[in-house]
């Protein structure tokens, strides 16, 4: 029998239903493993062992008594630490919220709790989700389980490393410009950014409200479909959540993808792309072709403007959203100050890290008097052009295939000195957030030095089901990762 921590969510659920393994046994296996492995990886900010054991016992009771259970009952998950968890501190990896204990649960937490899931803890991230390597956490680094000298990606680095290191059966992350897909790619796991509005953002600490979306990070595509099904749907507390039925994503996986038109954007296979990444993408495209898909070349002509557009819109929204951290109602407050304004300034200067300050500065600048038209308005117009690119492309294809990141995981410290270089590593993931469409990263091979490489699939708005079906078939043809890193 394989190690308990190697099972997928789907496998665990099957074993629970057969009574061959118990939720308490599984929770215990993860907690024991964390004692040995967590100090080497640093995936967690907070471990919630007591809560996990209590939830696992309750799940076990339900299975034993034959009460209602779901696909997530007794499944141990980890949560990115910017999703509010009632009574459990939620730090956003910031000194500003070091001691913040939310008085309410995010909607996704209510849904996971309602489904009987087990929470093992809260995962490390770049502060306020601003970064691509998790090196911007105010607390500690998270290392890539495949190579401890490299970054796990970011901003949901803890959530991705946690799944790859088998510190949880699956996790939730959030994605504003690639923060689920890029770390999933770097850690050899599946990461899904659903369509904007598919999952409620209530209780997700806001970074850029028109771009943020919560999604699952899992060992395989089936698990991603299961978790999405549990967290998706309309929420009266998030006015941007969509009034649309939630399909049975897991059931939808098995359909065949013969005749799917797969779009390969000519602008994405550009110079500077790591040869191993390019080879992996081309191999995956070949696999899709072999499964009866028709590969078509498409054009997304405004791709080269996506990063510039993103860093105006995302920072403008962030500057507005983060103005709430003023030391008045919650979070850090400076000790010594002369008056209210001084209190704001000291509180914010002490509480925020460098990258967060840099983005607040950029966002404040682009919104400041005299610059609004040149920056924010211009970017909002280009966003429309990017959106139209995708609309045209999806007339000609069902799904689009691209790399997730230009290269496999980079070394710790390699890009911290140059913010622009770090931003440019998001080149392939950012446009989906601007257009609101879903995207998924699926492992599709390894580089010559043994680092996992993900491939990105995208689909039109609310075509998450079609996206998952294509991803599931691709995963089947490429083969799932069988051998996880020894840690």
């Amino acid at each position, binding site marked *: 029998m394989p190690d308990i921590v190697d099972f997928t969510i789907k496998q665990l659920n099957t074993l629970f239903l057969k009574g061959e393994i118990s939720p308490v046994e599984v929770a215990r296996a993860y907690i024991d493993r964390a004692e040995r492995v967590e100090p080497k990886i640093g995936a967690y900010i907070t471990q919630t062992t007591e809560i996990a054991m209590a939830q696992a016992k309750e799940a076990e009771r339900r299975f034993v008594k034959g009460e209602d259970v779901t696909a997530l009952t007794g499944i141990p998950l980890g949560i990115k630490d910017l999703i509010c968890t009632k009574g459990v501190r939620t730090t956003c990896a910031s000194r500003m919220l070091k001691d913040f204990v939310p008085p309410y649960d995010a909607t996704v937490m209510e849904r996971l709790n309602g489904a009987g899931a087990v929470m093992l803890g809260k995962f490390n991230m770049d502060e306020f989700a601003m970064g691509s390597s998790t090196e911007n956490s105010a607390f500690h680094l998270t290392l890539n389980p495949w190579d401890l000298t490299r970054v796990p990606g970011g901003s949901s680095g803890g959530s991705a490393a946690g799944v790859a290191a088998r510190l949880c059966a699956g996790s939730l992350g959030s994605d504003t410009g690639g923060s689920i897909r890029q770390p999933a790619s770097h850690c050899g796991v599946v990461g899904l950014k659903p369509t*904007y509005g598919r999952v409620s953002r209530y209780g997700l600490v806001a970074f850029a409200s028109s771009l943020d979306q919560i999604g699952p990070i899992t060992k395989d595509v089936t698990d991603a479909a299961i978790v999405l099904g549990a967290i998706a749907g309309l929420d009266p507390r998030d006015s*941007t959540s969509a009034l649309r039925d939630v399909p049975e994503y897991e059931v939808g996986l098995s359909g065949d993808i013969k005749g799917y038109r797969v779009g390969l954007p000519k602008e994405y296979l550009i110079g500077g792309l790591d040869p191993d990444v390019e080879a992996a993408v081309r191999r995956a495209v070949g696999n899709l072709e072999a499964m009866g898909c028709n590969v078509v070349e498409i054009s997304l002509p405004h791709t080269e403007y996506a990063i510039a*557009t993103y860093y105006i819109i995302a920072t403008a929204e962030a500057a507005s959203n983060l103005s709430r951290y003023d030391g008045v109602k919650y979070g850090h407050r400076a000790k010594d100050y002369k008056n209210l304004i001084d209190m704001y300034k000291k509180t914010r200067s002490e509480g925020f890290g460098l990258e967060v300050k840099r983005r607040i500065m950029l966002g404040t*600048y682009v919104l400041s008097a005299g610059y609004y038209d040149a920056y924010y308005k211009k970017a909002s117009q*280009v966003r429309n052009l990017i*959106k139209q690119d995708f609309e045209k492309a999806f007339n000609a294809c069902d799904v689009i295939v691209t790399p997730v990141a230009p290269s496999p995981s980079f070394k710790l410290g390699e890009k911290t000195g140059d913010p622009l270089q770090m931003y440019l590593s998001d080149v392939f993931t950012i446009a989906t957030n601007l257009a*609101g469409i879903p995207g998924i990263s699926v492992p599709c091979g390894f580089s010559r030095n043994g680092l996992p490489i993900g491939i990105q699939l995208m689909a039109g708005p609310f075509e998450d089901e079609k996206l998952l079906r294509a991803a599931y078939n691709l995963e089947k043809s490429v083969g799932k990762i069988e051998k996880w890193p020894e840690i």
Partner: protein
Amino acid sequence: MKITQSEVEHVASLARLSFSQGEIDGFTGQLNSILDYIAKLGELNTEGVSAVAHGFESANCFRGDVVLPSLPVEDTLGNAPEKEDGAFVVSKII
């Protein structure tokens, strides 16, 4: 468009942030290289293109205008840096 040190100081003040001189120097250089990169958007003619706030059209989904229970005052004040008599305390402003 080049951002000057004094503009950086002005923006910092708008953002309610304070920096050491060294940090201002660092930010000025970094913001300029980011702004140089962003200036790329100027290449595009966007005349007549409407500005969008979201990726695709979707109407707000408002809930019914019904009074629902809200958090008790005690819980709301649970994270307050300073509180008194059911209120947040700040320094005198008038």
